[in-house]
């Protein structure tokens, strides 16, 4: 049985002058989901999120965010969602306590409630430094976690994270993603944009965006299946000259995608017979292994492939 979606977007568009930043986007998100936006810079991920946070009013289309729309200019939405922006996390010249007090003040939280929430969130993110710590002195990963805490102080049902891990170390990224999973386990819904494929793999569903349009939306597994219904081979020429073979392969029937990955090549085919036929002339020195397509392959095929 399907519950009512916590977020439902229908034909949402926004124009800035003549430029259509988001073009008729529709999707819905269930409670407790990790919903990812993947796309190049300028694809419309951030703009979509800003609309859903009430920061931008759409030009056309409708959205229901936790049951609320844009009738009041987005004010109602602002009260029930949490938002962590791409660029700014916390004021560097204020202490941890001052930053959180400020966030609580803007949300009109009662001091006792704010204190209780702060304690809960510190526990969640494992923060145990004194409140009087200057934010400027904190490492990037900790700042990011604190910013998440500040965005969740008012206990929002839906949390929007716009590239939350840009510029932090890989171990901090992993920590942050385990936090995201903890939050959704508590029944919150997380909507996140990212550049990183390994992060996208961790989302329940991914919305792929390109030039303002939603070009694919599914779980990572299903996206891979849809993009690559047949087998995918990784070819390793072990440093041998393979230019002639590759240019021949490019013209092979049933080839879906051929892309270089470092020293190796990934070749995807419509089905097994097509692969066998195309790779019959593979030089004996080269090795062939069947691989599962990665999200990066999907991204290249769906996003960049359509541009060629």
């Amino acid at each position, binding site marked *: 049985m399907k519950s009512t979606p916590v977020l439902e977007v229908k034909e949402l568009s926004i124009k800035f002058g003549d430029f259509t930043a988001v073009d008729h986007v529709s999707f819905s998100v269930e409670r407790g989901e990790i919903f990812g936006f993947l796309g190049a810079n300028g694809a419309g991920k951030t703009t979509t999120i800003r609309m859903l946070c009430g920061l931008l009013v759409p030009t056309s289309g409708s959205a229901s965010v936790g049951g609320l729309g844009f009738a009041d200019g987005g*004010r109602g939405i602002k009260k029930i969602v949490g938002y962590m922006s791409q660029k700014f996390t916390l004021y560097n010249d204020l202490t941890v306590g001052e930053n959180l007090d400020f966030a609580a*003040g803007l949300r009109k939280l009662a001091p006792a409630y704010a204190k209780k929430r702060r304690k809960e969130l510190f526990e969640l993110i494992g923060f145990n430094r004194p409140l009087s710590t200057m934010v400027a002195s904190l490492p990037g990963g900790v700042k990011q976690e604190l910013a998440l805490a500040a965005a969740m102080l008012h206990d929002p049902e839906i949390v929007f994270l716009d590239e939350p891990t840009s510029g932090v170390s890989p171990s901090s990224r992993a920590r942050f993603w385990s936090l995201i999973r903890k939050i959704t386990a508590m029944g919150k819904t997380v909507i996140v944009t990212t550049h990183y494929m390994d992060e996208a793999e961790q989302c329940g569903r991914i919305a792929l965006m390109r030039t303002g349009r939603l070009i694919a939306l599914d779980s990572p597994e299903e996206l891979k299946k849809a993009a690559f219904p047949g087998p995918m081979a990784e070819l390793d020429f072990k440093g041998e000259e393979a230019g002639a073979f590759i240019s021949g392969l490019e013209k092979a029937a049933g080839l879906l995608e051929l892309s270089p990955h470092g020293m190796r090549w990934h070749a995807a085919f419509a089905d097994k017979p097509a692969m066998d036929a195309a790779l019959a002339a593979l030089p004996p020195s080269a090795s062939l292994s069947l691989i599962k397509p990665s999200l990066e392959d999907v991204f290249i095929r769906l996003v960049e492939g359509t541009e060629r």
Partner: protein
Amino acid sequence: MNAFNIHRAYSIARKEVMHILRDPFTLALALGLPVMLVTFFGFAIDYEVKNISLAVSDRDNGPASRRLKEVFSSSGYFHLVEPAPGEGPVAMVDSGRAAAALFIEPDFSKNIQGGGRVEAQFVLDGSDNSKAGAIIGYLPGIQRAAEAKLGAPLPREPFSVETRFLYNPELNSRWFTVPGLAAIIIGLLAIMLTALTVAREWENGSMELLLSTPVRPLEIIIGKLAPYGLLVLAGVFFVYLVSRLVLGVPFEGSHLLYLAACLLFVTAALSQGLLISVITRQQQVAMQFGMITGLLPSMLLSGFIFPVESMPPFFRYFTMLLPPRWFMAAARGITLKGADLGELAVPFLALGLLSFGMLALALIKFKTDLEP
């Protein structure tokens, strides 16, 4: 009321106070700079022309001509220089070694004793007309002193104009300058402080986060105005102390009235800064705009240097839109004349309207969406 929440405005104000306290540069700028500038320029700007070099050609060299020269030198404005042999006084004026020259005829003393009409010629370097104007202003006084001293009953004019200055009897230009100077410096400071604050939040992206909460523009604006207003008023207080204690400017009127005028003027200037900040969204641009709109009109069009009354009609009306013009009038009126609210109704009303208008404009221009 749903439109404004004091709690949120207070949260923003408290945060701004923290920013200010953590930034010793801003604090020093707001409290120290006005005092420094007012002291510095208070001493430097002096419209009184003193130490005028007067080259004298005394071809009489009698008792009367000596007394006439004494009158000039004892006035406190002139010091006499003798032309070098073979050089006329005019040559000295030409070369800039003297600002004026005095010619005394050979029969000067003899004619005075004879009870006849005597004349001395005064030649003036007109190339610096503000200096020349000031020197001309001294001449009637010199003439009266000379008549008294020489005892020569000069032919009476049918009538004579006597000028008596009220309020600033010595026409002490420092008294006149300092209140105006304080207005300009404080106005500029207020504009610059707030011009940067909203632009900074746009630039570092924190505005986006602020706007993602249910906070309203009025709450942001009030929250930002209040702490900077207090800061600038503290600066005003120090300027007041320096003006009174160091520069010796008198204060004739009501302190409460002066505070009210300052409050209105500071609000107008802070709002102007906010308006700039809200529109430009960039610190660099906001700073340039603040400098230009904060300094030039208040220096040149507020009546600080050039009297508003002598401007062409368009500019005379244009100056009515400038808060410094009205504050200048109110501040000079209160400090020098001891004027009361009744006499200053127009400046006060204008200041009130302008500061309200500026605030409203900043509020209207404050867009809450993030449209690029």
